[in-house]
């Protein structure tokens, strides 16, 4: 059995090949999202329940002082809207990672991973697709919220877009990183308890950090270290045409870190690729 001395002529992909692949992945994820109406509805109902019920009840309990970026006293509903937007993206990121675990169990993930395009590019495309889906959900929420008197400046709907993309990427990358470490769908319930709930509640999504500091200095520092807090604040400021530089730096750094971690975790020879196959395949 001879070893080849010659090889087929090399021909790499042009930029067109990358664009085709990216648009193909975006198209597929959008189609899947549109086919899963229940997913869209539940993605909307969750924050709306918080907005219509929780915020209405909590309004009288928690007073919000004038804090940046707000220039006047605001209703509690207005305060938690950015947190609920970030919550949509958090759940979407985790939903994406859940679908990656499902795809891996069902085998669909292999189709993606055996593409000849670089794996980092495939994973980034998948992240972008997840972010696109989260944007659709967020703007549907903002539309409904507008009828509930949550009316940021018109320009805010545009200035919030880059913040949403960055936060969507960060939370999607976190989900992807988590999915690389989960072998079975059954284990995913733990993500709810150990990732989603702690991230959401130990943040500025539901209450301002100065309020937290008054109650528990330790929790205040936990909230400060939580990247989700900074996603909420980045969105909050961007919705009013401002930039929270600290939050931007934290979210950008976390996005880079989680994305790099996910790419390494999905690299053959590292992370998930090293584990024994499930389901009796050997």
């Amino acid at each position: 059995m001879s070893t080849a001395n010659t090889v087929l002529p090399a021909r790499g992909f042009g930029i067109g090949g990358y664009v085709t692949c990216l648009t193909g992945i975006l198209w597929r994820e959008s189609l899947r999202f549109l086919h899963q109406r229940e997913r869209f509805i539940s993605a909307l109902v969750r924050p709306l329940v918080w907005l219509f019920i929780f915020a209405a009840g909590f309004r009288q309990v928690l007073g919000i002082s004038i804090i940046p970026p707000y220039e006047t006293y605001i209703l509690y509903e207005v305060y938690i809207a950015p947190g609920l937007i970030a919550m949509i993206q958090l759940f979407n990121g985790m939903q994406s990672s859940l679908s990656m675990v499902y795809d891996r169990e069902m085998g669909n993930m292999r189709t993606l991973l055996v593409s000849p395009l670089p794996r980092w590019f495939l994973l980034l495309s998948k992240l972008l697709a997840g972010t696109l889906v989260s944007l659709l959900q967020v703007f549907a929420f903002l539309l409904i919220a507008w009828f509930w008197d949550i009316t940021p400046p018109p320009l805010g709907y545009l200035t919030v877009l880059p913040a949403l993309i960055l936060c969507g990427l960060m939370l999607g990358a976190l989900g992807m990183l988590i999915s690389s470490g989960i072998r079975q769908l059954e284990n995913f319930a733990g993500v709810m308890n150990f990732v989603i709930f702690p991230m959401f509640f130990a943040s500025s999504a539901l209450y301002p950090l100065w309020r937290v500091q008054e109650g528990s200095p330790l929790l205040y520092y936990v909230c400060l270290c939580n990247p989700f807090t900074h996603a909420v604040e980045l969105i909050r400021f961007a919705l009013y045409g401002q930039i929270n530089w600290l939050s931007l730096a934290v979210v950008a750094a976390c996005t880079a870190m989680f994305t790099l971690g996910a790419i390494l975790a999905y690299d053959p020879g590292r992370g998930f690729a090293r584990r024994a196959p499930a389901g009796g395949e050997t």
Partner: protein
Amino acid sequence: MEQDLPGSQHMPASESAAIPALSVTGVSHAYGHHHALADVSFDVASGRFTALLGLNGAGKSTLVSLITRLYGIQTGHISIFGHDIDRAPGLALRQLGVVFQPRTLDLDLSVMQNLLYHAALQGIARGGARARSTDMLARIGLTERADSKVRALSGGQMRRVEIARALLHRPRLLLLDEATVGLDVEARADILRHIRLLIADEGIGVLWATHLLDEISADDDVVILHHGRVLTRGAVSHILSQTETSDLDAGFRRLTIAADRRGDAR
């Protein structure tokens, strides 16, 4: 329907014949302390049907995962048409079409949508992809099911779609891992007939991982894998003369029993 697809490569037949479609050299793989493959070496020639024969647990799926770069190679080398899968994965994978053991189609998308998605992953632009998909569906006799949800297809039809999908980008090596598992006799024969026609028509190399001896014909090449080791490799006639048996079933038994007695088992 000839299209200049990104996956297609043109070269003289003589040059094609000189390069093994697949070359596996000294590959070992372990999951912790469990050794799934030990020093596996063999080639797959262009225009040949090579059966990777082994019982369940022999290491076939691990080998498939290494060839497709789902797992990283721990020891040894794998190259496809001379392109090392580790050093030039893009160039190697472009030559490869794969049908995995588990179904890998998106059940909620239509047949055509599945094919177009795969074409996009291969960098094939939409216009060419649609034409090529239509062409492939005609070849596997599923033109009328193009807009059907995959979920509505039978097991045999799904496999045919997966084969069509694997061939969309004109690979020169086709890898099928237990592609007929769960299919009835007629569907199995149908899939095998399609694959053998492809070899005759297009001269592609095929690596067919299976544990079913009746899927192997007299003029095929065979690699027998047992407990992660290659027991023998070559044409069926070579294996028969090596084992001094009259059929592959008996030859396979003789080799595996002897290996077990020698203690080749992990």
